[in-house]
């Protein structure tokens, strides 16, 4: 055996380094790789803990719908509703202005259109097409303004106005009685609880009955538009 080389090994690194430079080079490489691995692992650990990926892009919250659209109230309020809520009934207090036993005089223009007096300017006459239903006393009682009357002369209270409507709109009234026309709320199973049936005037203005138009609630939002831009309150087309 070669004595000096054995000595070299025993003395350790420096000699070997001088003799075989590639060996130190590989050790140096190993150190680098291991250090690199440590950095990589620490980085990975931090990334995992912070959950840098695997988390979906945050969605822009869609604005909550206006609670007005969740309201189950009717379009209008009937006389009975106002009485129940103990609200201002001055609109129904005819004799605050009119004189008793003195029927008001109706005035018409040359086309037989009813001229609405200034005191009642809030009334829009639109009951029946082509202005046919142009006589207040088709429905109101001439001699007692605080009552209504059917065309066959039956007197009806404001609170029972639906009966008056039914005296002309028979089939619709029949549907309404069954619950097929108009709004119902409460219990479909009548043995479990009561129902609330709305009066005609809860939805129809007796002087202009067509159901009023209204703004629609916001439409559906697309999922993919969320990640891009904040969504406006009302959807675009």
């Amino acid at each position, binding site marked *: 055996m070669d004595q000096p080389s054995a000595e070299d090994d025993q003395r350790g690194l420096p000699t070997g380094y001088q003799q075989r430079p590639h060996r130190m080079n590989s050790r140096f490489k190993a150190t680098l790789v291991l250090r690199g691995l*440590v950095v990589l692992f620490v980085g990975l650990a931090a990334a995992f803990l912070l959950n840098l990926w695997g988390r979906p892009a945050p969605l822009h919250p869609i604005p909550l719908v206006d609670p007005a659209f969740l309201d189950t109230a009717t379009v209008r309020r009937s006389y009975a509703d106002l009485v129940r809520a103990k609200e201002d009934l001055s609109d129904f207090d005819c004799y605050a202005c009119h004189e008793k036993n003195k029927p008001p005089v109706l005035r018409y223009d040359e086309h037989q259109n009813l001229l609405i007096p200034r005191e009642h300017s809030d009334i829009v006459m639109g009951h029946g097409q082509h202005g046919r239903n142009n006589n207040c006393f088709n429905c109101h009682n001439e001699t007692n303004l605080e009552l209504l009357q059917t065309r066959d002369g039956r007197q009806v209270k404001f609170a029972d106005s639906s009966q008056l409507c039914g005296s002309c709109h028979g089939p619709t009234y029949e549907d309404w009685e069954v619950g097929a026309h108009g709004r119902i*709320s409460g219990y*479909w199973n009548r043995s479990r609880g009561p129902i609330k049936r709305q009066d005609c005037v809860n939805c129809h203005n007796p002087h202009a009955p067509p159901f009023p*138009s209204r703004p629609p609630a916001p439409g559906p939002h697309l999922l993919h538009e969320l990640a891009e831009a904040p969504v406006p309150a009302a959807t675009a087309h």
Partner: protein
Amino acid sequence: MDRRSFLRTSAVLASGLAALAASLSPLRKLDDYVSLERFVQKYYKELTPEEMKQVLKRIENEVERQYGIRPHVRDLKPMDGVEYVYALNLTRCIGCRKCVHACVQENNLSRTPEIQYIRVLKMPHGSLDVEKGEHNYAPESVPEKGFFYMPVQCQQCKNPPCVKVCPVHATWQETDGITVVDYDWCIGCRYCEAACPYWARRFNFTQPSIPKERINPDMAYLGNRPRRQGVMEKCHFCIQRTRVGRYPACLEVCPAGARKFGNILDPNSEVSYILRTKRVFIQLKEELGTSPRFFYYFDT
């Protein structure tokens, strides 16, 4: 091994293990995704009343933990002699979409991303072809001249294609005609969504989000209890309301009275009267043979 290489190796090992542990750290929140009780829970139809009580309690706890509100969760069974039918009056509907949002509120539907059971189609007069329907309308006011509006939701078919395709029986038809989903049994394969010809089923692609103040605490197991990511849901005729005798939320909010609901087996109910006397345009896509319990009709 000398000291230096020992230190080097242990540094690598330690950081590697740390990284491994960190990558598994989401498992700490595993309870948010599946609790052990839910994981071992039995199929809905096999639960005894005692087990059901436990399940309802678990759901109440989960909802309370997630939303901070203690709900009242019930398991409501169908009533005898009742088969629900919905009738919608296309002459009356004005397309205001209030039903859509009342449903979202009642049934604890996700607000972001948005899940809605009802889709209102704006259709030109003279056609019942849903292909001509437009659902993104946003005019100043409705109804618009020349159009009618057709809300579409689950038709609660007598012959439901969605039930046939479910590989795990997580959805089925109850005796009162409501097709329900057991959200704890659903595996999220979405076959039912593909099978439904009415686009009535909705999938939770993400965890649904509902603001605390908009939670409806009156819940039912097969109804409006909050869903989780990865399950299907659909209209269930407001089971939590209808099975205690009340009208569904979409009906009560409709300002035009276009929506009618009731028991078709009761000859005195509104829906019986309507199907007897009105011009019922039978059912949507009746040629498919699904036989919906949802009827559209016109009147004068």
